[in-house]
């Protein structure tokens, strides 16, 4: 088993290697890695051309994982995702042909372009790590990680992800544009290397990823930090701007992601800052705002940020309950 210290060192090496290909997105890379360590799937939401696919490919390479990509389209069928039984003429039997979901890192590109039926085909795979076809349940390889992308701008010909499916993503990240300096750096690197892609080196293996996940379980979380997490989740349910608050699954995800954040900060114990740093990507996609806020274009991220600024952090002195 990898110790938390070793995992922390490995995390740094992974992000450093990823940064060779993905310029100016260290925090995004850290968050995706935290999501992977916590055993979650990650939704990358932003405009085309911002490096979502590059991030997924780079992670697969650096973590030494099998990689598959599904381009979700309106005519994609569930069997195109999970696989289907086919008739084998040589053996005269029905043989199951696995779909692209049988991989370790799956890039579900533009997941909101496919109808709910096909989206739902991913639900079991994402939630249970298995696929049931023709009455048979087949385990997916471990680790199984879905990095999904969706385009938040176009609405025509898209199917918004249902809450149940959104809740299965550990975090939702928005990339945003690079700063002018980072964009120039990216162009300069492309010109210098005279090749389309960066040849990344694997830093770990699938077994290494699983060991890193196990070490996450050894990161300490004090009881008052758990209460802090519950206070944040409860605040999302009580806020006047929120129609549906975060689920208990959101609280579980927040704790695991905070542990991942602690590891990345070279600690084997969680502090309130770890929770705050991952709370918005962990919970914003799990809350449903009131319709009038959609009209005013208030985002869930903004509401979550505001909520975090109002929830009390654990007291300075644990012996003093009120005034720290």
């Amino acid at each position, binding site marked *: 088993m990898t110790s938390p210290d070793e995992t922390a060192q490995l995390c740094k090496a992974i992000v450093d290697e990823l940064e060779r290909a993905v310029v100016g997105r260290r925090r995004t890379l850290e968050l995706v890695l935290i999501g992977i360590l916590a055993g979650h799937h990650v939704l990358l939401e932003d405009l085309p051309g911002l490096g979502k696919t590059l991030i997924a490919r780079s992670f697969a390479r650096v973590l030494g994982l099998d990689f598959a990509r599904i381009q979700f389209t309106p005519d994609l069928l569930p069997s195109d995702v999970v696989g289907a039984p086919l008739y084998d003429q040589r053996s005269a039997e029905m043989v199951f042909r696995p779909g692209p979901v049988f991989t370790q890192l799956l890039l579900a590109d533009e997941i909101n372009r496919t109808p709910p039926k096909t989206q739902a085909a991913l639900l079991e795979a994402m939630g249970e790590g298995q696929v049931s076809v023709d009455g048979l349940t087949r385990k997916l390889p471990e680790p199984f990680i879905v990095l999904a992308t969706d385009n938040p701008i176009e609405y025509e010909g898209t199917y918004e992800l249902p809450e149940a499916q959104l809740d299965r993503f550990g975090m939702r990240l928005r990339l945003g544009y690079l700063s002018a300096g980072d964009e120039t750096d990216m162009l300069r690197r492309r010109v210098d290397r005279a090749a389309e892609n960066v040849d990344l080196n694997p830093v770990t293996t699938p077994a290494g990823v699983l060991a890193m996940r196990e070490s996450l379980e050894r990161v300490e979380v004090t009881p008052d930090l758990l209460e802090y997490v519950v206070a944040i989740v409860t605040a999302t349910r009580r806020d006047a701007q929120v129609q549906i608050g975060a689920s208990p699954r959101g609280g579980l995800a927040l704790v695991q992601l905070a542990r991942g954040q602690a590891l990345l900060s070279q*600690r084997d114990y*969680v502090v*309130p800052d770890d929770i705050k740093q991952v709370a918005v990507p962990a919970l914003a996609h799990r809350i449903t705002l009131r319709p009038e806020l959609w009209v005013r274009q208030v985002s869930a991220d903004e509401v979550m940020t505001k909520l975090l600024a109002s929830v009390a952090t654990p007291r*300075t*002195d644990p012996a003093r309950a009120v005034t*720290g």
Partner: protein
Amino acid sequence: MKGQHWVRLLPLALLIVLGLAGLRGTVGTPRWDGPLHRDGIAVGLVLEVVFAVLAVLTLRRQRSAQQGLVVRKLRMTLLSVLSVGAVAVAVVMLLSLKLHFLNRPVKLPPQPPPRPGATPTRRPPVKAPAPLFHIPVAVLLYALLVLALLAAIAASIWWARRLRPSVGPREDAFIVEDSGDLREAVESGRSALRTVDDARAAIIACYLAMERSLADRGTARGLADTPDELLSRARARGVVRGTAAARLTALFYEARFSSHPLGPGQRDAAEQALDELAAALAEEKAEPEAAGAGT
């Protein structure tokens, strides 16, 4: 907090006093005759004052507070009602004055001088023609005043409920309530290091002393702040320089949120950080005093 309660109750008390004064007609009792009588104007003026005070309070709250959509809509509605009320009262008052001047008694023709020797006969007094129609101005104004007072009381209760500290935290509440002297706070941390055997408790006490000293310097920790956020804020305000505060904060995190055994090394590190911090803060405090003495 108690002071704030008084401040909140002050407008309500003022409105009630003004309202009672208006109802009694004791505010500047004008003594002219006519359909307005004496207290019509007084009641009207009191109403205008009430509307103005409420409008100013609403506007101030609208600027200062960051409220939700519903609250903002309610405020806008309240402002509209107040504006309409103020205009309506002004119109009623002007209309009444106008009617008063329209319904002046008709001037009678000059009477011929009495003839000498003639015994004066008492003529029946000529009555002024009755006004065309009568508006119960005072009744209307009294009704409006009562309505305004009721609205003010309801609004005050609503505000008081909204502003009542909820079970949850408030951004402007601070953890460190007692703000002792800087030296005293740092000394309490040092004494904790000397007296408390447990390194963990000593480090926490040390950090607590730093937090108090920062509060003394005007950078208190908010309820939703983390120690690192407090440190960033203190740095941004120039209250903290150097690395001592960051080291002490890191040690505090370890002492507070981990169950590692903490040894004398960490305890010594906390003591050293506290000493450096105290020296830096004392130096910083001495600089303006020296500058003040020099001038």
